[in-house]
């Protein structure tokens, strides 16, 4: 299996996988803390509408996905801020609207759209320019997470306390949604729309079962994402299955194992 390491396409896949894992793992910490699992999934599905509309208009699909994902994220933050609708409910409405618009747009598209690749990703076809874009966007998201870590953490564990401490709670809510949107779009190539939402939830869920303190929780989330993505890649070439699916199946197995370990620890 190690002969794959010599192939440039596999080296690019490993590098893209590592960047995606660090990004999704770090964000998964906040997704699980703020119970935004459905929001991550919703934004990913909304990106589908963006890709379809962009294809119809002849602009880069990634740009369409980003614009629609950010629009849905902004509308979700605005609705939950001004009308008291929960973020989950708001994103549920905007997501189906964006997907429906995408289906309508696809009806007018004359060229072929790689729907399978869009849904499940194709990490083994990541190009050098894809990797550069991923690294650039990833660096920006990570820089924002590091710079705003303290207010984001406080808002995530206690919004009222954060408001009293003078933290702009609405802006922090929006920031998390924007970072999720950017991450979803850059991770599309790696794991696809259907699976990126799982990559935003599973690492944090695994880490939460392991550590009750934030440093361990955060490090565990990034570590679990790296094991999922890199382990899933090697698994896919070892047993010849789709890499996106192997990444998520490995994550699901790790999650079950973490629950069993926690249960064994509490019983013991």
């Amino acid at each position, binding site marked *: 299996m190690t002969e794959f390491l010599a192939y440039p396409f596999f080296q690019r896949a490993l590098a893209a996988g590592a960047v995606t894992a660090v990004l999704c793992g770090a964000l998964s910490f906040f997704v699980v803390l703020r119970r935004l699992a459905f929001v991550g999934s919703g934004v990913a599905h909304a990106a589908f509408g963006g890709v379809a509309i962009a294809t119809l208009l002849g602009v880069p699909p990634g740009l369409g996905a980003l614009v629609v994902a950010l629009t849905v994220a902004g509308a979700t933050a605005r609705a939950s801020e001004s009308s008291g609708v929960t973020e989950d409910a708001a994103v549920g409405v905007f997501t189906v609207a964006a997907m429906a618009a995408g289906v309508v747009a696809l009806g007018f598209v004359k060229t072929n759209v790689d729907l399978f690749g869009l849904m499940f990703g194709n990490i083994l076809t990541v190009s050098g320019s894809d990797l550069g874009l991923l690294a650039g966007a990833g660096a920006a998201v990570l820089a924002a997470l590091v710079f705003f870590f303290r207010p984001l953490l406080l808002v995530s564990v206690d919004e*009222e306390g954060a408001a009293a401490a003078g933290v702009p709670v609405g802006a922090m809510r929006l920031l998390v949604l924007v970072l999720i949107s950017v991450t979803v779009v850059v991770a599309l190539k790696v794991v696809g729309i259907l699976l990126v939402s799982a990559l935003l939830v599973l690492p944090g869920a695994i880490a939460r079962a392991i550590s009750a*303190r934030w440093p*361990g929780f955060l490090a565990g989330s990034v570590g679990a994402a790296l094991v999922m993505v890199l382990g899933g890649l090697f698994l896919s070439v070892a047993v010849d299955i789709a890499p996106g699916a192997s990444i998520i199946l490995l994550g699901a197995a790790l999650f079950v194992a973490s629950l069993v370990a926690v249960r064994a620890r509490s019983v013991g």
Partner: protein
Amino acid sequence: MSVGIRFEGIEVRFGGLPVLAAATGALPPGERTALVGPNGGGKTTLVRVLIGALVPDAGRVAFVDGTGREVPRPRIGYLSQRSTLSPLAPVSGLDLVSLSLDARPGLGRRLAVREEAASALRRAGLPEEAVSRPVGRLSGGQRQRVLLARAIAGAPEVLVLDEPDTALDAEGLKTLRRIVAEEVAAGRTVVYVTHDSAAMGGADRVFRVDRSVVEEPPDEENA
């Protein structure tokens, strides 16, 4: 400098139903004010407006100095009625108080923050061994002491306590009364929601909140 709060014409509606209507009042600097009233009367809603956690449908909140001149929003120490902390929140009491003291964006941090937080936790009477434990693994009374420590940490000019005696045992109540007395003596403005205006050792002013706000004479025995 002592900072007071003035609120004028506050209106809040939830689902079209008025919770507060034309609520107006002034909480003078350096005094102890009790907000009393029936359940559902709008006491917690009013304090959420005062701390900036809830934007009212109408009206405004201003912070004033001893001469009545408006000043910028001061640091506010806040203890909520029900803990809004998730039991799964992966922070210890020390983390929580430290974050509340210094939640600015950026890479640098004040080195004294952890010591300030630890000192507030000691003052609130949290046992030493519980200081670094995740808040989800503390008892209700211990968690209330963490929230009290967060409210008083860093010597905020205004202290807003929403039913602070919840879940506290007799020793905890004694600590709470002592802390409130010390804060008032240090010139801080203390506002607390209570069903018993004598609970925190009496009040200089009492406001009854029941959709509107009406000032009542304080109980003379406890004033």
